[in-house]
C-alpha cells in the first residue's frame, strides 16, 4: 500500500466525484440520479480514508462512517420518495416531477 501515492487516491476520488456530478446533471431517470449521488458521497469517503491513512489520524475514518450513516438514511428516504413518485406517474423522468413549482 505504501507504494501507492496519496495523489492517486485523490485523483481517483476526483474522477469518481466528477462522474457523479455528470450523472446527476445529465441523466433523467430518478434512480440513476440517486445512484450518482451515492457515487459522489463515496468519492468523498475515499478521499477521507486516504487522508486518514496517510496522516495516521482517525478523524477521517470517523467522518467516513458519518457519511455512510447519512447515505443509508438518504437511501431509505430517497427510495421511498422514488416509489411514491412512480406510483403517481408513468415514468421516473425527473423533468416531470415539477408540480411543486405551482
Amino acid at each position, binding site marked *: 500500500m505504501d507504494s501507492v501515492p496519496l495523489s492517486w487516491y485523490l485523483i481517483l476520488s476526483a474522477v469518481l466525484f466528477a462522474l457523479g*456530478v455528470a450523472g*446527476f*446533471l*445529465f441523466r433523467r431517470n430518478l434512480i440513476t*440520479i440517486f445512484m450518482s449521488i451515492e457515487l459522489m458521497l463515496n468519492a468523498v469517503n475515499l478521499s477521507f480514508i486516504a487522508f486518514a491513512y496517510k496522516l495516521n489520524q482517525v478523524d477521517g475514518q470517523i467522518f467516513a462512517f458519518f457519511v455512510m450513516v447519512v447515505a443509508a438514511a438518504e437511501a431509505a428516504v430517497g427510495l421511498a420518495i422514488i416509489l411514491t413518485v412512480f406510483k403517481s406517474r408513468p415514468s421516473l423522468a*425527473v*423533468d416531470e416531477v415539477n408540480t*411543486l*413549482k405551482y
Partner: protein
Amino acid sequence: MQHLWLIPALPLAGFLVNGIFGRRVSKGVINLVAIGSVALSFVWVLKTLAALGPLETPHVERYFTWIESGILSVPVEFAVDRLTAVMLLVVTGVGLLIHIYSIGYMGHEGGYHRFFAFMNLFMFFMLTLVLANNYLLMFVGWEGVGLSSYLLIGFYFLRKSATTAANKAFIVNRIGDFGFSLAMFLMVVRLGGLDFPRVFSAAQAMPRETDPGLLTLIALLLFVGATGKSAQIPLYVWLPDAMEGPTPVSALIHAATMVTAGVYMIARSAPLYQQAPIAMDVVAVVGLATAFVAATIGLTQFDIKKVFAYSTVSQLGYMMLAVGVGAYAGGIFHLVTHAFFKALLFLGAGSVIHALAGEQDLRKMGGLRRKIPVTFATLVCAGVAIAGIPPFSGFFSKDEILLAAHHHAPWLYWVGVLTAAMTAFYVFRAIFLAFFGDYQGEHHPHESPPSMLGPLVVLAAFSLAGGFLPVSRFLEPLFPAGEAHHDPALVVVSVIAGLLGLGLAWYLYVARRGLADRIAARLGALYQVVYNKYFVDELYNAAIVQPVVKGSEALLWRRMDAGVIDGAVNGIASRARAIGAVLRLMQSGNIRSYAAWVLMGSVVALIALGFSGGAR
C-alpha cells in the same frame, strides 16, 4: 373634605350604567338611574353648600397630581367659591328639571337610554367645568360638554340635517377651542402654570395694560374660546342649527348651561381681564353686536325653536356685554335668570311641539291658548321675564347690565335698550303667533303629561320671582369692585322699551293680523336679508368652507393621499413584484438546472478560494 368629586361623579356613574346596560333594562330603570343620579348630585351640592357656609374664602380639594413635567404641574383640584356655588346650583337644579321633563318628551322616541346616557355625560362634564380649579381641568369639561353637545345635536342621526348640524357645532367650537389652547400655552410659558390662583396673582403682578401686551393677548385668545362656546360673533352660526337636537337638549345645553360656559369662564378670569382693558372692550363690543344682530334675525324667523335660538345668542351677547364692562356679578346674575326663563321658553316650545306632534312652524300654529293652557301660561311667564317687565326676573338682571353699560359708555346702553325692545317683540311675536288667532294646523293638539308640566311650572315660578334672588350681592365680593350705579330714568327707559316691543307685537300679531306681512313685503330686500340671517352661513360657506373643501380635495386628497401616500405604498409593492418577476425565472422547477446552479456556485467559490490564496 366635602367630597366635591361626588358632584360630577354621580352623573358619570349614571352615564356608565345607562350607556352599558340601558339597552337591556326597562324605561323605569333608565329613568331611575338618569334622574336619580342628577337628583343625588343636586342634593350633594345643597349639602356641600350648607356645610361650607357663606364661602368667604374658596374651598379647595386636591385629589392627585395629573401632570408633572418640568415647569408644568397640573393637579386634579376642585374648588368651590361663590361663583362656582351659583353655577353648581343652576346646572344641577335646572338640569334636574330638564331631566324630569325629558321623561315625558322623549317617551315616544327611540334611543331612550342613549339620550339619558348622553344627558348624564353632559352633566358630568359641565360640573367638571365649573368645579375645576385650573384651566386645563376646565378645558377637559369644556371639551367634554362640546362632545356631549355634538352627540345630542346629532341624536336623530338618521336625519341628514341633524348630523350636519352636529358636525357644524363641533367644528365651529373647535375653532374657539384652538384659541383657548393657545391661551393656555401662553399661560404655561409666560405665567408659569395653569392654576387659577397662580395665573391671577401672576397677572396682577403685571402692570395694567393700556397698550396691547401679553395679558391682552391671553385674554383675547380666551375670548376666542368663549365666542365658540357661547355663540358670539363670528362663531355664533352653530347655535341656531343646533336646534336639530331634541328640545330638552336645546333647553339644557344650548340655552341654560353649556353656552353660558364662555361667560362663566370670562367671569372666572376676571382678575386677568381686569388687567387687560382693551380685551374687555372687545368683549363688550362683540357681545353687544351679537346681542343686536341676533335679535334682528330673531324678529323674522318662523321656526319657534329658531326664534328662541337667536334669542339665546342675543341674551348671551348681553352677558358678554356685562362681563366686558366689568359687571361680572350682573353678567352671572343674568346667566342665572336666563337659565330659568330660556330653559322655560325652550321647554314650553317643546311642549307646543309635542302637542302638535312635531310641528315647529309658527305659521301652522295659532289659537293654542285654550287647547294647551298650562303651556301658554308658563310661556307668558317666560316672556314677561325675558322682556324685562318689572318685577320679573329678567328686569333685574338686564337692568343691572344696562346700567353698568351706560356707566361705561352711553351708546352701549342705547343699543342695549333697542335690543331689549326687539327681544320683547320677537318673544311675544312667537307667543302671539302660536297662541292667539285661529288654529292653522291639522293635528289635534293635546296638553303635555304632568312630568313635562311640572318642570314648566317650577321654572315659571323662578322666572317670575328669580329676580329677587340676591345673586349679585352674593357675588359682588368676589369681583373687582365697580361703583354702584343707580339711575331711575335709565331704568324707566329700558322698561318702556320692553313694553313698547310687547305692545308692538300685540298690535301687529293680535290686533291687526296681516299687517306684519304687509310691512315685511314693503321692506322688501332688507327683510329678505334679515330673514336669510344676513347670508352669514352662505358667506362662511363661500369664503371658508368651500376653499377648505376644494383645497383638501385637490391637494390633500388627490395629491397627498392618492398621490404621495398611496403612490409610495403601491410603488413599493409593484417594485417588489417586478423584482420577483425576474427572480422567479431562476425557479424553473427543473431539478437539474438547480444542480447546475449549485455546481456553478461551487466552482465560483473554489475559484475565489484559489485567488485568495487557498484555505489556509
